[in-house]
C-alpha cells in the first residue's frame, strides 16, 4: 500500500503529511464528535428515539433545515452578484467593500444577533416598517432567516470570487467571436464554470446556518414549535443535565447534515466533471 502510493506521487513527504493530517483531523474533529456517540451509548434505543422524534424536536428540525436552506439560497443569489461586481468592475472604495464582506466572520455571532434584533424588532429602525406592513420580522422565522443570511454571506462570495478571477477573458472573447450574445456567454460559458464554486459556497453557508446558535437565539424569540431551533433544544436539555438527550439531538443533526453535505459534494463532483469534459 505504502509502496504503491509512494510510486504514485513524485512529491516527497507523503507519509509525514498524511500522518499529520490524520492526527490533526482525529484531534480536532473525530475525537470531539465521537464523544457524542459515547454520550448517547448510555441510553437505550427507545429513549434515543423518544428524544429525537418528539413533536417539538421534529418541529425544530423542520424549522432549522427550512430557514438554513432559504438563507443559503438567498446568499447564493446575492453572494454571486456581490462576487461578480467585485471581480468585474472597478469602482471607488472597492477594497473597503471587499473587506466588509468578511465582517460576519469576525463578528461574535451573539453581537450580530443582538444588533439584528435591535434593528428588526417592531420598534427598531427597520422593524417598524415591517411592523407597518403587519409583517413580523424579528421573533419570527423571518428573523432567523435574516440572521442566517448575515452569517452566511462571506461563504458564497469567497468561494465564487477566486474562480471568477481565474476565468480568462479569452474565453469570453472566443464565445463572442463565435457569435454568442452576452447572455449566452454567461449562461453557457461562464456559469457552468462558476457553478461548482457557487454550490460549494451554498453548502458552506447552509451547514454553517444549521449549526448557528449565538445569533439566532437573540432574534428568534425561542417559541416552542414556532421559532425554536435544535441547538436551543440541546441547550435546554443540557440545562436539565440530560447529556445523553442533548447528544441524541446533536447526532440527528450531525448525521442529517453529513448526508446532505455528501449529496451536495457528489453533485458538485458530477457537475465539475461534466464542465471539465466540456471544456476539454
Amino acid at each position, binding site marked *: 500500500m505504502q509502496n504503491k502510493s509512494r510510486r504514485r506521487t513524485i512529491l516527497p513527504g507523503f507519509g509525514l503529511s498524511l500522518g499529520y493530517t490524520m492526527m490533526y483531523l482525529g484531534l480536532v474533529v473525530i475525537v470531539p464528535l465521537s464523544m457524542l456517540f459515547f454520550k448517547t451509548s448510555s441510553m437505550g434505543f427507545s429513549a434515543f428515539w423518544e428524544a429525537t422524534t418528539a413533536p417539538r424536536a421534529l418541529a425544530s428540525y423542520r424549522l432549522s433545515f427550512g430557514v438554513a436552506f432559504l438563507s443559503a439560497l438567498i446568499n447564493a443569489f446575492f453572494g454571486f452578484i456581490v462576487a461578480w461586481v467585485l471581480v468585474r468592475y472597478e469602482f471607488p472604495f472597492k477594497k473597503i467593500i471587499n473587506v466588509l464582506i468578511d465582517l460576519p466572520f469576525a463578528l461574535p455571532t451573539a453581537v450580530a444577533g443582538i444588533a439584528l434584533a*435591535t434593528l428588526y424588532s417592531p420598534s427598531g429602525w427597520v422593524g417598524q416598517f415591517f411592523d407597518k406592513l403587519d409583517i413580523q420580522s424579528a421573533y419570527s422565522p423571518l428573523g432567523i432567516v435574516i440572521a442566517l443570511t448575515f452569517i452566511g454571506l462571506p461563504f458564497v462570495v469567497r468561494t465564487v470570487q477566486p474562480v471568477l478571477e481565474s476565468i480568462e477573458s479569452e474565453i469570453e472573447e472566443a464565445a463572442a467571436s463565435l457569435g454568442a450574445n452576452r447572455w449566452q456567454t454567461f449562461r453557457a460559458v461562464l456559469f457552468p464554470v462558476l457553478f461548482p464554486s457557487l454550490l460549494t459556497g451554498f453548502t458552506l453557508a447552509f451547514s454553517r446556518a444549521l449549526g448557528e446558535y449565538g445569533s439566532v437565539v*437573540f432574534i428568534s424569540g425561542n417559541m*416552542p414549535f414556532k421559532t425554536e431551533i435544535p441547538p436551543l433544544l440541546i441547550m435546554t436539555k443540557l440545562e436539565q443535565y440530560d447529556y445523553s438527550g442533548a447528544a441524541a439531538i446533536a447526532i440527528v443533526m450531525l448525521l442529517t447534515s453529513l448526508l446532505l453535505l455528501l449529496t451536495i459534494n457528489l453533485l458538485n463532483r458530477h457537475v465539475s466533471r461534466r464542465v471539465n469534459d466540456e471544456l476539454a
Partner: protein
Amino acid sequence: MFKNLGLVAAIVFFGASLSYGQSTILNVTYDPTREFYKDYNKAFQGHWKKTSGQTIQIRQSHGGSGKQGRSIVDGLEADVATLALGYDIDALYDQARLIPQNWQKRLPNNSSPYTSTIVFVVRKGNPKHIRDWDDLVKPGIAVITPNPKTSGGARWNYLAAWGYALKKWKSEAKAKDFVKALYKNVPVLDSGARGSTTSFAERKLGDVLVAWENEAYLMINELGPDKYEIVVPSISILAEPPVTVVDKNVDKHNTRKVSEAYLSYLYSKEGQELAVKHYFRPQDKQIAAKYSAKFRPVKLFKIESLFGGWQKAQKTHFSDNGVFDQIYAK
C-alpha cells in the same frame, strides 16, 4: 507515534488542570451577582487579612446558573459555588459527588445568605394598570419573561405565578390554566434573564417584565427611574440563591478554611449590608429591620412548602414533557 501523542495530550491536560495557587479561591456564580461579589470580595479580602494575616485572591466566574453548575460538574475547579437555585447545586452531588447530599443544611437559612423575590417592572405611569398576577393573563397584555427551560431565574418566575394561582384557587388544574394563559401572553422567550431585560427595555417589547427584585432595581438604576417602575404583587415566591463550598475542590486545593470563611462572612453584618446595597433581601433580622423601607412587604411562600423542593419542582414542571412543555404542546 500514538504513544507519544498520548503522552503529549496527558501533559497538556495535566498542565491545564493544575490548580491555582493556594492563596486563590474561585467563586463560580451566576450573572446578576457580578456587581455584588465584586464589592463583597474586596470586603472579604480586608476581613481575611485582618483575621488570618493572609492575602487572598478571589476569582469570579459568571454565566447562566445552569451553565455554571455544569462547568463545575465538568471540571471547573470552583472552591465555592454561589448559584441561582438549589437545583443547580444539587447537580454537583447528583452528577459528580463533589459535595455531600445534605449540602443545603450546612449553612443557615437553606444556605441562602440573601434572598430575593419575583416582582413586575412596568413602563412609567403603569399605563396598562398592572397591579397583581391576575393582570398578567388579561388579553392584550404582553408579558416578558425568559424561557424557564434555559434560565434558572425564569424558573422562579414560573413557580411564583404557579404558587399564586395555587394559593388562590387551591387546584392544580386551575394553576395550570393560569400559567398557560400567562405564557400565552409571552411574545418572546429569551434564553436568559438579561436577554429579557433587553427585550423589554431596549426593544420596547411587552407591557410588563417579570423579574427578580434585585435585577429590577439594578435595571431601573441603570436605565432610568423616569422610564420604569416596580410593581410588587400581593404574593410571590421567596427566591433563595444558595451557596456552598465545593468539598472535593477545596480539599484538593487546601482552601477549605478560607472558602468556608468566605461563605460565612456573607452572613455577617458587613456581608448583609453589601447584599442590601445590591438589592438582595438580607437574612439578618436587624439589617432587615433597618432597611424595611427599601424592600416593600410582600407575602412570600417557599419552594419547599409549595413544591416540595427543587428536585420535585424541576421534575414536575421543567423536565421534558413536564407541565411547562404541556402548556406549549399542540
